[in-house]
C-alpha cells in the first residue's frame, strides 16, 4: 500500500513536471520569474496568442512556450532559428539553402554562441550570415560550404524534425536556381536526409540537379510518385508520376523569389546587439 502511494506520488510529481512550463526550452535560466518564458530576437507568436511575429528584438518575456525545434537557448533566452516568412514576417529577409551555422551573438548580442539551422531546402532568415568565409552567396542565396563542426552533426538527429514542421507550411519560399557551390553542406553524406523526397522540378525543398530532376534528402532511384503542393499564387495542387522510389511531398513557393533583403551590405550581418 505504502509502495503504491510512493509510486503514485512519484508519478504525480513527474506529471506535474511534464505539464509545467518549466519543461519547455529556456527553462534553464536561473532567474525565471513566475510563468515567464524568456526570448531574444523576433519570433513567431502562437496562433492562440494572435499569431504573426513578435517585433521585440531584445531580451523579453512572454507567457507562452518556445518549442525545441525552432528555438535555441542563448544566454538563457529562447532564440528563433526558423523561417520567419512562414509566419507572415514582412521585414528584411535573406535567403539560404540548406543547413548552416548561426552566429547568434552577431544578431542579438550577448555571449559568443554558434547555433545551427537544420532546414534543408531554401528558406529565409531575418539576418545575414556573420562574416564567415564558409558562407558562399550564389543566386542571391547563402550556402554553407564549411566543414561542419562535430556539434552541428551530433545535434542533427534531434533537430532535423524542423523539416517536418516546415514542409506542410504554405508560404513563399525563396527559389534558388543556381548550382550549389562546391563543398555545399547539403551535398555531404552526413547531411543527406534519411528517407526519400521526390518533387516536381521548380519548387520545393529538394535540390535540383543539372537535369532539373529533383533530388532531395537521400538516395532516389527508380519509379515513384511525387506530390507537390504549390503555394499561392495561385493555390494549386499537382500530382505527378515521376522517376524515383517512394513518395515525397514538397511544398514550395509559387513564385521565383530572387529577392535581395533590404539593407544588404549593412554592417555585414553584425547587427548591433541589444546588450
Amino acid at each position, binding site marked *: 500500500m505504502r509502495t503504491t502511494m510512493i509510486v503514485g506520488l512519484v508519478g504525480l510529481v513527474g506529471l506535474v513536471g511534464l505539464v509545467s512550463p518549466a519543461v519547455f526550452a529556456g527553462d534553464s535560466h536561473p532567474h525565471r*520569474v*513566475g510563468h515567464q518564458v524568456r526570448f531574444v530576437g523576433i519570433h513567431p507568436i502562437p496562433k492562440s496568442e494572435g499569431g504573426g511575429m513578435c517585433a521585440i528584438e531584445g531580451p*523579453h*518575456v512572454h507567457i507562452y512556450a518556445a518549442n525545441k525545434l525552432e528555438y535555441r537557448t542563448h544566454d538563457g533566452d529562447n532564440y528563433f532559428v526558423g523561417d520567419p516568412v512562414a509566419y507572415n514576417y514582412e521585414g528584411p529577409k535573406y535567403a539560404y539553402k540548406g543547413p548552416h551555422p548561426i552566429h547568434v551573438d552577431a544578431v542579438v548580442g550577448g555571449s559568443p554562441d554558434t547555433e545551427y539551422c537544420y532546414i534543408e531546402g531554401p528558406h529565409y532568415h531575418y539576418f545575414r550570415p556573420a562574416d564567415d568565409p564558409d558562407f558562399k552567396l550564389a543566386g542571391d542565396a547563402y550556402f554553407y560550404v564549411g566543414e561542419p563542426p562535430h556539434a552541428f552533426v551530433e545535434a542533427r538527429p534531434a533537430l532535423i524534425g524542423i523539416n517536418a514542421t516546415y514542409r506542410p507550411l504554405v508560404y513563399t519560399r525563396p527559389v534558388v536556381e543556381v548550382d550549389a557551390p562546391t563543398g555545399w553542406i547539403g551535398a555531404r553524406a552526413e547531411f543527406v536526409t534519411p528517407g526519400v523526397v521526390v518533387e516536381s522540378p521548380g519548387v520545393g525543398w529538394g535540390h535540383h540537379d543539372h537535369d532539373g530532376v529533383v533530388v532531395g534528402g537521400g538516395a532516389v532511384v527508380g519509379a515513384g510518385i511525387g506530390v507537390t503542393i504549390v503555394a499561392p499564387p495561385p493555390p494549386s495542387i499537382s500530382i505527378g508520376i515521376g522517376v524515383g522510389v517512394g513518395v515525397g511531398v514538397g511544398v514550395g513557393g509559387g513564385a521565383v523569389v530572387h529577392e535581395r533583403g533590404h539593407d544588404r551590405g549593412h554592417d555585414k550581418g553584425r547587427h548591433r546587439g541589444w546588450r
Partner: protein
Amino acid sequence: MRAPAIARAVVVVGLAAIGACGNGGGNAAREALIAAWKTGGLAPSAFAAVKDSPVGTDCQAGTVNHVDVMVCSYPSAEAAKAAQDLGLQWVGDTTGIATPKGSLLIVAADRKKADPKGTTINQLVKLAP
C-alpha cells in the same frame, strides 16, 4: 591662500546641493528618454514617482501607447543591469521587458494587451538615446 579655500568650500557646497536634489543625472536621463519616445512617435503619459517600488528607489511610472512602463534610475549601469530581475518581477505574468540603458532600467508590461506584436515595446528600447 584664502581664495583656494573659498573655492573648495564652494565646490563642497555645490556637490552637497546636487546630492540634496536627489539623482539629478537620473532625472535628466529619464526626461531625455521620454522626450526621445515622443520624438519617435510614441505617446507617453505623464510619469509619476513610484513610492516604495521593489525595483528601485528612484522609479517613475506611466504608460506609453497603453503599455505600462516604469523607468528606474540607478547610480551606475551595473546597478541598473543588476536590477533586471526585479524589473521582470514587476512585469509579472505578461509580455514585457526589463532592459538597462546606461544607468536607467526600462521596464514595460503589456498588461492591457495593447501591443500584441510588441512594436511599442521594441520602440521603447530602440528609441532610447
